[in-house]
């Protein structure tokens, strides 16, 4: 339980701020697609070496980055738009992943991969999550000006600087890193919850980018802690309980927040 709480803190600090930028870039659905893309990568690693932390992390990263690049590349160089491109790749990945896992493992393994095991994380997994969160926070802090600029006016940045592609691909890497971290704790289906929901909730409360980053991380931690407690006391599956609580935070923010549809 203490481990799970620490995992939630790490995830909140890493994933929620990344979610803020995804939202501002209108790429929330891309995050969904990438998180599903992690599944076949992790599945191949699982077939090769069982439930091993390092190989599944590696496999997930490779698959996630591959799909992010492929889907983005197809969208940029053909008539297919980005949303369709991501949707196509995510359907392929998800089905491939499920087939791969059921080919060998039992239903328990499948459930583990899809919904994670935040209550059964060992030290190694926890250190991995903490490392991912640290990388993510440090990268965002260092690249904040570049990232805000690139989100706000990419055409202008392209004219005055060559760092645009670095910002884009660096950011997509951060997305994958955080989703792989989330995958260990919450599973591929739920990992995206802690990325998107707190960011969207924060948007109802504050405006500026720095406040959004702080608010999203805080809401993520509050929500995931609440979800964890619910799952602990009422015997609910932890991943879905956490995401559901984050969803409740979102609905509450929508109803009460000063930028929601009611108090606008």
């Amino acid at each position: 339980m203490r481990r799970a709480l620490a995992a939630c803190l790490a995830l909140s600090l890493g994933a929620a701020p990344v979610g803020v930028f995804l939202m501002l870039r209108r790429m929330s659905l891309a995050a969904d697609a990438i998180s599903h893309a992690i599944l076949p990568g992790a599945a191949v690693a699982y077939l090769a070496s069982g439930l091993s932390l390092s190989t599944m992390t590696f496999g997930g990263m490779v698959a996630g980055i591959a799909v992010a690049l492929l889907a983005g590349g197809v969208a940029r160089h053909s008539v297919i738009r980005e949303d369709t491109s991501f949707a196509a790749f995510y359907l392929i990945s998800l089905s491939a992943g499920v087939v791969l896992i059921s080919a060998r493992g039992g239903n328990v393994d499948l459930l583990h991969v899809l919904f994670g095991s935040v209550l059964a994380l060992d030290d190694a997994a926890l250190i991995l999550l903490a490392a991912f969160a640290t990388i993510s926070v440090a990268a965002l802090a260092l690249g904040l000006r570049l990232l805000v600029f690139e989100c706000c006016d990419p055409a202008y940045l392209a004219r005055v600087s060559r760092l645009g592609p670095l910002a884009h691909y660096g950011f997509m890497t951060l997305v994958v890193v955080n989703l792989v971290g989330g995958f260990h704790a919450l599973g591929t289906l739920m990992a995206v919850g802690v990325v998107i929901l707190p960011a969207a909730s924060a948007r109802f409360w504050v405006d500026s980018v720095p406040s959004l980053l702080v608010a999203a991380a805080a809401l993520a931690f509050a929500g995931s802690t609440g979800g964890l407690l619910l799952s602990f006391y009422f015997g609910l599956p932890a991943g879905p309980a956490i995401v559901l609580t984050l969803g409740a935070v979102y609905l509450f923010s929508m109803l009460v927040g000063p930028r929601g549809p009611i108090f606008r």
Partner: protein
Amino acid sequence: MRAPLLVFDAVTLGYDRRPAVVRLSGEVAPGSLLAVVGPNGTGKSTLLKGIVGELSPMDGEIRLVDARNSLTPSSPSTPSNPSDPATPIAYLSQTPGFDVDFPISVHDFAAMGLWREFGAFRAFSRAAKERLAEAIVTVGLGGLEKRLIGELSGGQLQRARFARLILEDAPLIVLDEPYNAIDEATIADLAALVRRWNAEGRTVISALHNLAHVRKEYPRALLLARELVADGPTEAVLTEEKLALARERMRVGAC
């Protein structure tokens, strides 16, 4: 005459093999205040995109001479980045091209104009912060520094974009239809700013469709109808005869 800042050498520009500007030749002297005029669809925007390098010529070339030393000594300019060989060009595209709902304040938005000097990591110097504050006051947005760009009117947003241009401190400024759907008061203020830029020795090239405004504000004009129709002092270019010729060429070409 001083060496030209910009040379068009039989340049052809267009999209997808369809030329929009055909074999244009000419020169722009440093310190010019030049209006690019012509009927709709004559390649005004295309020519400006060619100048700023967003579009590569299909044929011929556009040569840009290093203009960092062309500013008069009285101007506050400092060469922004000596290692960068290209002349910095400040460019205002016709459409904003950014997400106006992005939650960024007028202050931070204008600060993007300092990118060439400070890049991604360096902190702004005290002098730069003063220039930033001054630029916002100059465009008439003093007091609105913390306002989000999404809350600005069309005219105010254009003022914010001009504040960003001021901070770029470029010797060549290219404006594509800067006054489209903008209120009269804003046009007057921004036109005064353009005059000030020119007085500082900067070259300004604007695509404009309001001929009365061009006659009043721009000493030189370039009349375009896919090909060059006329180039020279504004009163000699914007004659009824030449404008009719430009319209005629566009009618023949459009099919």
